[in-house]
């Protein structure tokens, strides 16, 4: 009985108070800022030889992962969910990392097959 009552009380509100308008615009400026940095690298730093392309690519990927974090954590609100839900969503991403490792490794062998 008491469990049902707490359920009803928990149903709405509670976990949703954490995203205010101010916070939303804050995240927007972060996303825009990161994208601007990517543009500066792609349009100025690489063409002028300040950063070699080989170094720029990992920087792009790290910046992209930062953007992904801000979208998932704040816009999709995952940061404020119960820890069980966070793990249920984040842990399966290991499968994606696994596929990346397997296929990048595999692709190095394809080069010989293509020759």
């Amino acid at each position, binding site marked *: 009985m008491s469990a049902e009552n707490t359920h009803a009380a928990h149903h709405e509100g509670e976990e949703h108070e954490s995203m205010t308008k101010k916070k939303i615009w804050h995240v927007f400026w972060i996303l825009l800022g990161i994208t601007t940095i990517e*543009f500066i690298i792609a349009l100025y730093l690489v063409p002028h030889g300040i950063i070699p392309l080989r170094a720029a690519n990992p920087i792009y990927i790290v910046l992209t992962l930062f953007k992904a974090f801000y979208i998932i954590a704040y*816009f999709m609100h995952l940061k404020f969910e119960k820890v069980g839900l966070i793990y249920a969503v984040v842990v399966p991403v290991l499968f994606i990392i696994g*596929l990346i490792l397997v296929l990048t490794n595999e*692709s190095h062998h394809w080069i010989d097959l293509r020759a």
Partner: protein
Amino acid sequence: MSTAVSPIDEVKTTPWSGGRSPFSVEYGKIMMWFFLLSDAFTFSSLLIAYGALRFSSNSWPAADLIFQSVPGTSIEHGAPLVFVGLMTFILIMSSVTMVLGVEAGHRGAKKEVATWLILTVIGGFMFLGCQALEWRHLFSEGFGWGHIPTDLSEFFHKGAPVSATYTQQFANLFFTITGFHGFHVFTGVIINIIILVNVLMGTYEKRGSYLMVEKVGLYWHFVDLVWVFVFTFFYLV
């Protein structure tokens, strides 16, 4: 005859003891999360296949040479990333309007929710329009599924071997992946419109909760999330 309950007979009220969602999230919302996870697997498979093919090639058409025009204007050369930058900005912006709509929903402000949803739908249509322009421009250059231009030298950096095979792979992957993403944007816009109609009819006001806006918002942010990766791996790297 003691009335005290021994610890083992006490009814547990911990999150995982049953009777309620341990995640304290509504059923539809958790299903949306799991759907998005499966969708993330689909998109990663496509992007990882792209990565593997690109890694195994000795030459690849350069993004800053293929995407250097601004479709819809007279700028044909020398403006790499400008158009796709605009597209990225539109999509991030529409993500912001969506999350502002969700925030308004928590306060039960029907008019505000409707306004933000309308702006989100407009952003979605603008993105789709930009993508249509870009595709049309690439088609006019000769790119397509199974089609590449006859003269490929302008799409490779100086010194890189010009390869028709890899250009064809690039074209197929580009249209498949951005097409699949564009299809998601399209369905997202349709769902947003349905939700908007429901907001205006007062469906959620009667229900007493704008949770549905939140669930659709999750889908819309996911579309933005995928674009962040597509943008990096097709236009930057």
